[in-house]
């Protein structure tokens, strides 16, 4: 039987004796106990004997692959932090290992500081892990998500499987599919749940300010910098930084983000010394990131650095009965908040909901339900209660974009320029399923401009 002291021994499985010696020396100098093995068989025997919580594992061993060894280790002890060591040029295999549950990977050559940082990250993760592993597979739905469709069950599984890892998660999906919710779920199920979760919408912040928002600035570093400002990366130290609409990020800043990912250090605007931070990155976009790479709008090296564990959120129209499950759950909850009583959906409403394309996805569904609950008493949602424009979304043969009813000159005559601007922008947003980035591209303005204008209109509307 292994003792606590044994389990704290780091198990190093590396078949090159010189490298074994070098890694062992670096770890021992930092005060760690290390057990070295040169083959998979020796490694597994030592693992059974020591029950090591941290395993440094070379990807290519003489008798088995590192992936097979890691799968055996995690099957027997899912809490183990496996740090994969790989030669330069084997990044794809390393990514495969991360997807299979590795905690982190180190690319040769790496210095002793990088090695010790990886061990320290693993130790922190172990401290925050529950002592007894929870049987999460018995609970298929991952709160706060609602829905049992196969596509979403896959998403829940993926979120759970990345929980033990430090891997970067790249979330894609149409606008309104719940990308931020997904990022929060990854954070909440991870060992970093007790740390901060900081979300930053890269599309909502003007390009000039984004660097300062991410990395912070020092007082006086530019006009208007009247105080030191801590950036999102530093605010997320020990937790998770969620970069939404990552493809909207300026190319220059992408370079700085890449450096941050490579070195885990930030240099606030105006500062001369970098500062080390420990942050897990989750990013999201509603664009096709690979297409953005092909078009030269997104750095390829950054893409591969970020795109370690992709999670795709399916659109609501592909989630089968989820639309009904979500509606029935939310309608009761919203009714309670509004002081009304709603208990169910009429059969015709269910039929309609199943057939609608839901271009705005769950966000659109929530708006529809809120509208119904606020304006009606209940107890059952009927077709007559639904907003009239929703019925226009029925899946009749979709007209070509040019044929869709656009804002006409008649709609605009007699209006102020500001009113016309709002009409045109809202029309573009409606045609793009409320996707700000897509509308911004059509109107050839930055997404941040549209976010600011929308916020100003909402404020003005509230005052009326």
């Amino acid at each position, binding site marked *: 039987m292994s003792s606590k002291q044994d389990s704290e021994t780091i198990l190093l499985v590396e078949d*090159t004796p010189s*490298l074994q*010696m*070098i890694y062992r*020396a*670096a770890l021992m100098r930092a005060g760690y106990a290390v057990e070295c093995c040169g083959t998979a068989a020796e490694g597994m025997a030592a693992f059974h004997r020591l029950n090591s919580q941290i395993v440094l594992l070379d990807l290519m061993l003489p008798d088995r692959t590192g992936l097979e060894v890691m799968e055996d280790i995690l099957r027997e002890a899912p809490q183990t932090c496996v740090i994969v060591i790989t030669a*330069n040029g084997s990044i794809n295999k390393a990514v495969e290992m991360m997807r299979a549950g590795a905690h982190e990977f180190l690319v*040769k050559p790496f210095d002793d500081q990088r090695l010790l940082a990886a061990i320290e990250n693993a130790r922190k993760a172990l401290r925050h892990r529950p002592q007894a592993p929870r049987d999460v597979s018995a609970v298929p739905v991952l709160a706060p998500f609602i829905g049992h469709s196969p596509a979403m069950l896959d998403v829940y599984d993926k979120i759970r499987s990345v929980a033990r890892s430090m891997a970067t998660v790249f979330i894609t999906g149409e606008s309104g599919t719940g990308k931020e919710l997904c990022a929060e779920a990854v954070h909440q199920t991870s060992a970093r749940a007790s740390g901060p979760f900081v979300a930053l919408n890269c599309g909502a912040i003007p390009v000039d300010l984004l660097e300062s928002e991410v990395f912070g600035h020092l007082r006086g570093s530019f006009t208007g910098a009247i105080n030191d400002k801590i950036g999102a990366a530093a605010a997320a130290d020990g937790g998770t930084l969620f970069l939404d609409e990552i493809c909207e990020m300026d190319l220059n800043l992408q370079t700085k983000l890449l450096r941050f990912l490579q070195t885990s250090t930030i240099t606030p605007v105006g500062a001369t010394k970098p500062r080390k931070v420990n942050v897990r990155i989750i990013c999201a976009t509603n664009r096709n990131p690979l297409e953005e790479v092909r078009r030269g709008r997104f750095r390829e090296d950054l893409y591969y650095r970020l795109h370690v564990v992709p999670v795709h959120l399916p659109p609501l129209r592909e989630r089968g009965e989820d639309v009904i499950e979500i509606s029935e759950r939310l309608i009761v909850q919203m009714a309670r908040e509004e002081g009304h009583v709603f208990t169910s959906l009429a059969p015709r409403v269910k039929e309609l909901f199943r057939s609608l394309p839901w271009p705005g996805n769950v966000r659109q569904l929530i708006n529809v339900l809120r509208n119904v609950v606020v304006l009606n008493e209940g107890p059952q949602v009927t077709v007559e209660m639904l907003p009239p424009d929703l019925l226009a979304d029925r899946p009749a043969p979709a007209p070509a974009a040019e044929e869709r009813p656009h804002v006409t000159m008649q709609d605009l005559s007699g209006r102020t320029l500001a009113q016309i601007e709002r009409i045109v922008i809202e029309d573009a947003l409606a045609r793009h399923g409320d996707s700000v980035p897509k509308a911004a591209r059509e109107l050839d303005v930055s997404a941040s401009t549209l976010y600011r204008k929308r916020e100003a209109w909402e404020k003005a509307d509230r005052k009326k």
Partner: protein
Amino acid sequence: MGSPDTTPPAFDRAVLEALFAMGDETLRAALGAQLEADFARLRAVLDHGTPHEVGRAAHELKGLAATVGAGRLAEMARSVDAVAQGLSPVALAAVTAPLKAEISAVLVSLAEVVADTPRP
């Protein structure tokens, strides 16, 4: 009179010296000897191995060389690692020849560095 030798050294000495500095005299001696043994072992595989064995040796060499600061050797090993398994014995001998020569150069430099490294 020939032109001065401008060939860059086989090792980045600073990297190797930093590794030796991680421990005491015993580690320095042991690591020096182990590096010599590993490079010699891998050179022997390049001499006599099958394409599969040569590919694996090049892969191992790539990581080892990069870690100890033998950048040129790491780069050459990376190239051989990428192609070794699809080559005929003749082609394999041709691509491994410069690699073996570089290993020899590395072994010479290694012996010099080991001899020169200041004792703690």
